């Protein structure tokens, strides 16, 4: 459980920093992502990719279907379903999130396509962040509830 918590902590904090460098700084500076912010964004992006793979293999086995339909009033079951949903949405969104970056680094991609890739990267990054927020919230709600039940 501690490993899961630590991995989630890394994923969340790295995503927060990526969100900050990728959205907040350009929003306030009015300029595209560049200089130190860009370097930081790239380095953190690599870290997030690794952390996501680790998280995927750590939790993926437990979160695989089949799922049972929660009974009416079983909040705990609903929470578990919500966690699984957010987890897989997050992982599925990570695919375009990473591939838009790797694709844009390839010289055979035409310049005209790059703004589209950037837009796709930004949109998936935003949705990914929402899914992560949902996952983390539900994960810790579920954890708190479990602890309350045990005590």
């Amino acid at each position, binding site marked *: 459980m501690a490993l899961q918590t630590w991995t989630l902590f890394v994923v969340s904090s790295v995503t927060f920093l990526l969100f900050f460098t990728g959205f907040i700084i350009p929003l306030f500076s009015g300029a*595209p992502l*560049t*200089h*130190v912010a*860009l*370097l930081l964004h*790239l380095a953190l*992006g*690599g870290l997030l*990719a*690794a952390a*996501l*793979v680790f998280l*995927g*293999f750590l939790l*993926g086995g437990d979160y*695989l*279907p*089949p*799922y049972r339909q929660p009974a009416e009033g079983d909040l705990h079951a609903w929470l578990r379903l919500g966690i699984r949903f957010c987890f*897989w949405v997050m*992982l*599925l969104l*990570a*695919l375009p999130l*990473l*591939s838009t*970056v*790797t694709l*844009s*680094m*390839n*010289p*055979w*991609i*035409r*310049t005209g396509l*790059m*703004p589209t890739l*950037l837009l796709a990267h930004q949109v998936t990054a935003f949705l990914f962040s929402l899914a992560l927020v949902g996952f983390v919230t539900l994960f810790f709600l579920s954890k708190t509830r479990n602890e309350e039940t045990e005590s």
Partner: protein
Amino acid sequence: MRTWLFDLAFVVLLSQAFLAQADTPQPLLGDEGDGSRAIPVHRIPLLDEGGIAITPDDEPLVPFSPRQTCAKECHSYSTIASGWHFNALDAESNPGRPGHPWIYWDARLGIQIPLSYRAWPGVFSPDEIGMQPWEFILRYGRHLPGGGIGEIEEGPQSEKLLRWMVSGQLEINCLACHNAAPEQDQSEYATQIGLENFRWATAAASGLAFMEGSARAMPDTYDYLMPDEVGDPKLTPPTIQYQSTGFDPKNRVFFNITRTVPNERCYFCHSSFQIDSDHPEKWSQDQDIHLTAGLRCVDCHRHGLDHTMVRGYAGEVQSSTNPLAFVSTCEGCHLGQGNAAFPQHGRFAAPVPQHAGFPPIHFEKLSCTACHAGPWPGESTQQVKTAMAHGLGIKNSDKSPSALPHIMTPVFVNGDGGKLEPHHLVWPSYWARFVEEEIVPIPTETIRAAFESITSSTAEWQDGWQTLPEETLSAILSVLAADPAEPRPAYISGGKIWQQEQGQLVSQEHPAAAPYTWPVAHNVRPAAQSLGARGCEDCHSVDAPLFFGDVQVDSPILSLRDTTVNQVAFQDTSGTYLNLFALTFAFRPLFKLFLQGCTILLLMLAAVFLFKLTESALAWIQKTMDRQ
């Protein structure tokens, strides 16, 4: 009463209309075209300065005047004179982005200073160094097309008033550009300027006439219309002879005039030559790819009667009245304007660039020329010689590679709109005084006198300069500081200001010592020879010349010889960041592999999930169907 008032008003209005019409210059014969692209044959009489036709039997023979011959009945001179090549003196004309200055230099006095009558930041007006129009014409008239400063009317207080009367004005030399005849000889024009034969220069260069003699040798009282015998038989008054075959039976001559000026005419003033030990001859250096592709200079640099020539830079459209200002830029031809009503790109068969793999930020940070124009940047800047600065193409031009002025290239500078672009650079070296914290150049004659007052037996010549040891520099500054009534003297050179403080020579950086730079637009290299053609590392490596190349510092001061400044010092960015960013490119292939590996692993997970999801969905469907 009322009728009378109406009549009066009508008469007043009518007279106003007539007066207004009289004020508005009527178009002359050649001012407006009828649409034909054929070139009118110019078989015309030659007119002298008074507008009188010249015949081969005239005595004395006088030079033809372009102002009269070309402009009396056909082309409005005053409209043409407002054009880019002639309007430097006009305070109302827009100076546009900084361009190639005239460079005054004196190797013995340690002077190399950019001059222009245009208000470009970093240049000095010739007046500021005590250079009068007369001297300016004598020095630079060799590569001036006449007009402007050549026709300035100096007041009676001018020391050179009588000399102007002897030599005449330097009218606009239409033939310098528009004469397609191979006999047009601008080198001869330069020779005549040197001989102070201003009014004869156009005719002498045209190939229609031959010149002998020199106005320079004539006394102040000399009148070319009444050439008396000159006392000294060794002195030949300026004498012109026309080719006997030049005149037809009606005393007209044929001018091979063209609208589409041949490149070679432009080249006389706009040649540049790279000083490159590997390619020391001009035949071994390629010219602009556009010319190789068959374009002419005037295909892009166009203008109408007002000669408001398109200079061709991106910001020009904001100030130019030329309607082709935008479409004649790199973007205009190669990309067009995105929101234009009709497609504009592809003019002259310009290919639309693909720029495959280039993140769009490059187009926000770099001008087209950064990657495509000028010499390929090396570890260190090279020197370039230009026609305007080095008098290329004239007789007896200094062919030495170290000839002053020293122009460094390419230097990558944030230019128009903050984009990085290659520039030529000249390090100013001049003597000045602090006048209320302003740096004011000291007239050359004062400096010459100061140099003559000290003996410098140890003077050594290096790379075109008479070197200036710090002891000599101190001695000159002491001489200049001798008069306590004069403001404090200083010497500006190599990007620093040198002055004496409490008997010690000290130097520091100062804005007045900043180098003057101007954009390089040519030669444009083909796409395959552009920066980035070999990959990102052309620019994004820790030793990329674009950022980390050396810019040679040029100065006669001995201690500054062989010093350099990093390219990044001229750019609005941090060298540390560029180094860090360049380092990331060393890991870029690994990073790409790593990201691709992560993507594959996530893809595998996603595949398992989707497989399981499908499996459970099918099971659920099966179960539901079984129940039914």
